[in-house]
Structures are given as structure tokens and as C-alpha cells.
């Protein structure tokens, strides 16, 4: 296939969270790197692929910190090949893979495995999260130095919470030596064990086992206190309660440095969806009641929440066909996350495009110390092109992901990803984009 080395994306709405730019213009890519905005014709390379995107949004490729695939060990849910395809289709040029595999990513060799599989898939950039604890069992520290040496970008036992408070304290101290962030999913398991859905009136009526909000609040409070005590780096992967967000807000106001993330599902879905008893609505953090959803949006708006993650957690069909009690937690979201944010965060005016995209590209990339989140010259040309006005209907079976577990099946969302570029290569292009005409790929003769 013809793969041009230079692209000129024309007639674009260029949004760069790293500079705050949001304006109409054209963007040049040369040899895998951004080569400037509004370059005059005289400075264009001789051979350049021109693409008039007709006013669509062009922004840095998205970066996800909460993606789970299941390879190795649960390839029936998602492989690195299918998962990275899904990532590209959703506009993600970088993903940090969860250590929750079988066996978990707790050795240098397993980090190496992820890197090799990612490279072989040759889709988006794949980074590995290493385990905080040995065998992800939450008791003693994994060989974090070796994991970091092998390239683990951060340490996480997610989606499991780090239950053992002593272990979390040691992890924060120990990881700080390597300047790595510890990810924690805030949940006190002794309060939530056996739970299926958010505790409240809906849960009471449905008779499903409860996951109380305070299970998250208490964990958030504990985690923040330990950051304060140790000076370690902490990322709360998935806040979802008003109490937890309020704790983050106040701690940040006191100057305590940590980041808070949220899964996209918690921004617009609530616990009434469990009335269907659809196991695809069984996620962790659970879909909360509407007052918590409102608090999540407020936390986004006022900047308490730094990062929006997909929370992509594929589960094969047979697993989600079980009784809701027995079915595993999780929904797929890589391919819908950006559209969910456009539909429920940007269009209602809670965040601007630039603010929202910062939380999906710049902030996560910076947190784990990788490239991305910018359109500035010489940065690797990772970008997403999205038509923000076009609606599409989610059809779980036609998504790239190997699993179908999304409760959004059949719903309409705004924002169609037209293309995703990784290092200057157009790795994904929507079937809705017409094939490049003969003329557009002609040499640019001056």
C-alpha cells in the first residue's frame, strides 16, 4: 500500500491542548513528525498527501491509562491485536495496558512480552503498566525496579484496589525512587465485597448486592493521606462518587500533588440502567446514582479530575451471558469514549474541546512520561481527526474490539473518528472517508 511520508491536513479545526490553540488552519506532517501549522505552499515538501478534512477537528492522538485486554491469559476477551485496532478506531494513538493478565505483568519478561506483542501488532503505541504487588496478590512489592528497567511506565494492581495500606505506603515510597506513579483504584473491598451495583434506592428495589459510595470515599481519603505523608506519586484511576471527588478537590486546594482519573461511563450513565439487569451495566466503579454523576461532571468542570480514561474492560459474550451476580465487571469503551465525551461533556458545554482533549491526551501522556498531547513542531505526529457533528449508532457487533460488552449498543452518539495517525502514518481511516482521489496524491509541483 502507498504510505505517504508527508501529509498536509487542510481545512482543519486544529486543537492543541499543549498550547491552548483552537483555530482553523492546516497542519503539515513530515517524516513522522509535526512540521508546523499553516506552512506556506513554498515550504511544502515535493511529495505530499493533501487531505481536506472540511472543518473537522484535528487534535493530538488520545492516550488511555485504563485499558485492559486480557492477553496473555484471557485472549477470548481481547488480544493485543484486536484491542489496539479498537484503540485506533476510537482515536487513541497510545494506550497503557493493565497489568491484570494471567499471569499478571509482574516481571521484566512479561513487560517485554507486552512490548513485543504491541510492536508486532503495529497499530497504536502500547505501553505496559507493571504490578505494584507480586503476582498482583496485594501482599508484597513486585520487583518494581526491574519492571521500570524493562519499560513499565507506571505501577498498578488495577482494576484491583491496593487493599493493604502498608503495601500502598511502601509502594508510594519505593516507586518515587524511580519517579514512577502508583495507580490505585479507590475501593475498600471489605465494604464492597460481593457487591454488584451502587448502593441506593435502585439497588434496594432490585435486590442486588450493594457497593456503597463510602467504599470509594474512605479509600480516596486514605490514599491522599499517604501521598501527603510519603511525597509519592499517586494516580487515582477511577473516582466516581461526590464524596471522593470532594476529598480530591480539598486536598488539591491544600497543595497535595496527585492526579484523579474518571472512567467515561461514570460521566453519563447512572444506576437506573441496572433495571435492565443487563450484565453489560455491571462495571467497577459501578454506575452511580444521578447525584454522583452530576458531581463527576462538576469535578471535571472545575479541574478536580485531571484525566478521562476509557476503562475499557472486554468480557467475552459467554461471560456476560451469566447471571448478573456471576458475570464479571467491565464494559468496552475504547471505540466509544471520545464520542461519549463529545456527546455528554463537550456538547453540553461542561468542558471546551481543548479542556476535554487535554484530559484525554496531554494529561495522561505527561503523567506516564510519554510523547503525545501536542501538535507542536517536531513532536511525533500522533493525531486524531474527528467529525464532531456527525452522529453514529453504536453497533457492538461491528466494533473492532473482540468483545461486545457495551450497554451503549444501539444508542446514538456524536463524533465520528475519521482517522488516527501514529508517528505520521495513517493507521486507521474510517470506512466513511472516501478513498483519496488521484489528484490529491499528485506531486505538489510549484
Amino acid at each position, binding site marked *: 500500500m502507498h504510505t505517504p511520508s508527508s501529509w498536509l491536513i487542510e481545512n482543519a479545526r486544529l486543537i492543541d491542548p499543549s498550547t491552548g490553540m483552537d483555530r482553523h488552519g492546516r497542519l503539515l506532517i513530515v517524516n513522522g513528525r509535526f512540521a508546523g501549522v499553516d506552512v506556506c505552499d513554498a515550504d511544502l515538501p515535493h511529495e505530499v498527501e493533501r487531505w481536506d478534512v472540511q472543518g473537522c477537528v484535528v487534535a493530538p492522538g488520545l492516550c488511555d491509562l485504563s485499558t485492559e485486554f486480557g492477553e496473555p491469559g484471557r485472549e477470548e476477551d481481547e488480544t493485543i491485536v484486536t484491542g489496539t485496532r479498537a484503540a485506533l478506531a476510537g482515536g487513541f494513538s497510545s494506550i497503557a495496558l493493565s497489568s491484570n493478565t494471567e499471569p499478571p505483568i509482574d516481571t521484566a519478561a512479561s513487560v517485554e512480552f507486552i512490548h513485543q506483542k504491541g510492536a508486532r501488532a503495529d497499530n497504536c503505541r502500547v505501553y505496559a503498566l507493571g504490578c505494584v504487588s507480586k503476582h498482583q496478590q496485594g501482599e508484597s512489592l513486585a520487583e518494581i525496579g526491574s519492571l521500570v528497567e524493562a519499560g513499565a511506565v507506571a505501577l498498578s494492581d488495577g482494576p484491583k484496589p491496593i487493599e493493604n495500606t502498608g503495601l500502598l505506603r511502601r509502594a508510594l515510597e519505593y516507586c518515587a525512587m524511580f519517579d514512577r506513579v502508583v495507580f490505585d483504584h479507590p475501593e475498600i473491598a471489605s465494604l464492597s*465485597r*460481593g457487591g454488584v451495583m451502587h448502593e*441506593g*434506592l435502585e439497588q*434496594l*428495589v*432490585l*435486590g*442486588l448486592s450493594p457497593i456503597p459510595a463510602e467504599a470509594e470515599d474512605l479509600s480516596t481519603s486514605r490514599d491522599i493521606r499517604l501521598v501527603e505523608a510519603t511525597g509519592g506519586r499517586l494516580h487515582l484511576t477511577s473516582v466516581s462518587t461526590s464524596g471522593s471527588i470532594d476529598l480530591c478537590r480539598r486536598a488539591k486546594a491544600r497543595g497535595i500533588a496527585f492526579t484523579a482519573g474518571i472512567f467515561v461511563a461514570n460521566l453519563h450513565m447512572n444506576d437506573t440502567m441496572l433495571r*435492565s*439487569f443487563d450484565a453489560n451495566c455491571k462495571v467497577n466503579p459501578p454506575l452511580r446514582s444521578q447525584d454522583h454523576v452530576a458531581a463527576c461532571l462538576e469535578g471535571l468542570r472545575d479541574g478536580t479530575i485531571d484525566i478521562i480514561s476509557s476503562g475499557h474492560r472486554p468480557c467475552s459474550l*459467554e461471560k456476560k*451471558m*451469566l*447471571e*448478573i*451476580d*456471576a458475570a464479571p465487571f467491565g464494559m468496552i469503551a475504547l471505540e466509544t469514549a471520545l464520542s461519549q465525551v463529545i456527546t455528554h461533556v463537550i456538547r453540553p458545554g461542561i468542558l471546551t474541546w481543548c479542556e476535554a482533549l487535554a484530559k484525554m491526551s496531554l494529561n495522561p501522556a505527561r503523567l506516564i512520561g510519554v510523547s503525545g498531547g501536542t501538535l507542536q513542531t517536531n513532536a511525533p505526529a500522533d493525531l486524531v481527526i474527528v467529525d464532531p457533528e456527525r452522529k453514529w449508532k453504536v453497533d457492538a457487533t461491528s466494533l473492532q474490539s473482540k468483545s461486545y460488552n457495551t450497554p451503549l449498543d444501539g444508542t446514538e452518539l456524536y463524533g465520528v473518528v475519521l482517522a488516527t495517525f501514529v508517528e505520521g502514518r495513517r493507521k486507521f481511516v474510517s470506512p466513511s472517508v472516501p478513498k483519496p482521489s488521484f489528484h490529491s496524491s499528485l506531486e505538489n509541483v510549484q
Partner: protein
Amino acid sequence: MTQPSALTVPTSLALMESHPIPEDWRHHHLLGLEHLTASEITLILDYAEALHRATENGRKKLDLLKGRTIANLFFENSTRTRNSFSLAAKRLGADTVEFSSSGSSVAKGETFIDTAKTIEAMLVDAVVVRHSSPGTPQMLSKHLACSVINAGDGPHEHPTQGLLDILTIRQHRGSLAGLTVAMVGDIAHSRTARSNIWGLLKLGAKVIVCGPATLVSKNWEKLGVEVSYSLDKILPRCDVLNLLRIQFERQAIRPFPSVHEYTLLYAMNQERIKKSKDDILIMAPGPINRGVELTPEVADGPHSVILEQVTNGIAIRMATLWLLLGRRLDAR
């Protein structure tokens, strides 16, 4: 037990005329009482009494559902509800097929949907399902073409139990409106409580839920239900007490210090009967833990209607089967 006598075709025909499936009866499944209207509930109660009379208190067999097959699909142990449904089906002339399996589908290696589809493929007209997980009847109703009747899904709903409890009260008091009915005990894990609450509220009764704070959520108040932790305080106001069984098997962690202490606070005994209204009705969905929720003297005493509940159970289940299956004579 009374043996049903020969088929009584004239009775059946008369019944079909006097108690037809109403035009506006839209339900194909019975999943819970939450989504039934007051008039639909009343209809089931009326039909239950009519069918009970038509079978001459169970001595006669009708042929209203002749040729129909009803599958009992029980994923959780049960003897009384299962037998009650079987008898109800047989008294209406239907055939029954029994399927039981304990434990969740994870343990068995076959999803319960597959199990249900297998049963449906035996060309049954309805499945009566009991399962420890809430929502399983709803899930089945999406996957099966036949009628699904919820015979108890975890702590969620047990609609026929709710209906038979309400029928029993109505038989003694004529109407539910204005009565004060207390559900006592393990509300958190009780499907019977939930079905009763929906039905009783719709029919105008005042409902109190009473039990240890660890098993009675304050959130019930949002539905207009009174929450109490003291049986002695509410007792003088109650017209009916429904004493729920402590569901030890559903409690991962014991929610109260000991059975002894529970009995002290919530068991219905002769002392408490004395403090109650003279005509108080004592109900229990069973199986009862004698000495825990109520003492033997109360269970067998003059206020107890526990065995009437059992008899009414068959009537309610006949009405349910008739209303769900009566119209679809050529459906298959």
C-alpha cells in the same frame, strides 16, 4: 391430599365465559409486582378465587390449559413453591416438566440461558423460574419466546408469594385499603418483602418494614414505607404481621449478634400477641424457623393464617397461569 376427580368440561367452559382474559391484559410474563397496576393485581386476586371455587377447593380438575406444558425450572431449592406451581398447572389440566439444578451456572459449566433454551426447545408454554440471582427471569424473558413466571429471583421479587399474601389478607378483611401491614425481619434479603411492598402500596395499605437496622434500609422511606427497628413500638398499630424468615444462606456476614438476640427483639410470641390488636393476622411466607421468627404457639394459634396462605398459593398460581396462557391457544 385430595385427588382431583374426572375432568369437568362444563365448568371450564363456564369459567372461560365468566372469567375471560380481558382485552387490556397485556402481560406475557409475570416478573414482579412492581410493574403491575392495582387493577391488574385485583384481577389476579379475583380470578384466583374464582378458579379456587371452580375446582371445588381442589377436589376437581379443570381443563382450561389442556395440552399446555409448564416447566418448573428451579435453580434453587424449593419444595412448597415448586409443588404449588405443579398442582396449579395440573388442576388446570396442563402438563408439567420438572427441572432442578442447584448452584449457579458457573459451577455447572452451562449458562442458565442455555439450560432454559434447552427446556424451551421441549416445546413448553411457560417456564416457572427460581434462581438465587436477581434479574434472571428478566434475562430469560428476553431470550425465550414462551412465558416466564418468576418464582423468586434472589432478593428481588416473588410475585406469586406477594399476591397470595395479599389475597389472604383480603379474604379476612375484605379490602386492603387503610390496613397497616408490617413486614418483619430480614427485609434486605427478602423477595417476599419487595413483592408485598409493591402490591400493598398499590392497593392502598400502609406498609411498615421492621427489623434490625443492618437488614432494614432507611431508603425504603423514599417509597413511602415506614421504617421501624422496634417491633414492640409498632405492634399496637398493626393489622397484619408478615414474619419473614431470616435468610441465613444469603447473608455473607451475620447482620446481628445472635439468633438469641434476634428472637428477643423480633420474634412473635404469646407476650407480644397480648399487646397486639385483637384481630391481628399473623402470616409467614415459610418455611418458618419455629422459635426464631415466631414461637410454635403463635404459628399454630388462632391469629395464624399461615396454612391458608399455602392454599391460596395454588389459587394465585392457577390465576397466573390462566391469565398468561389462556389466550394463546394456538400460539405454538
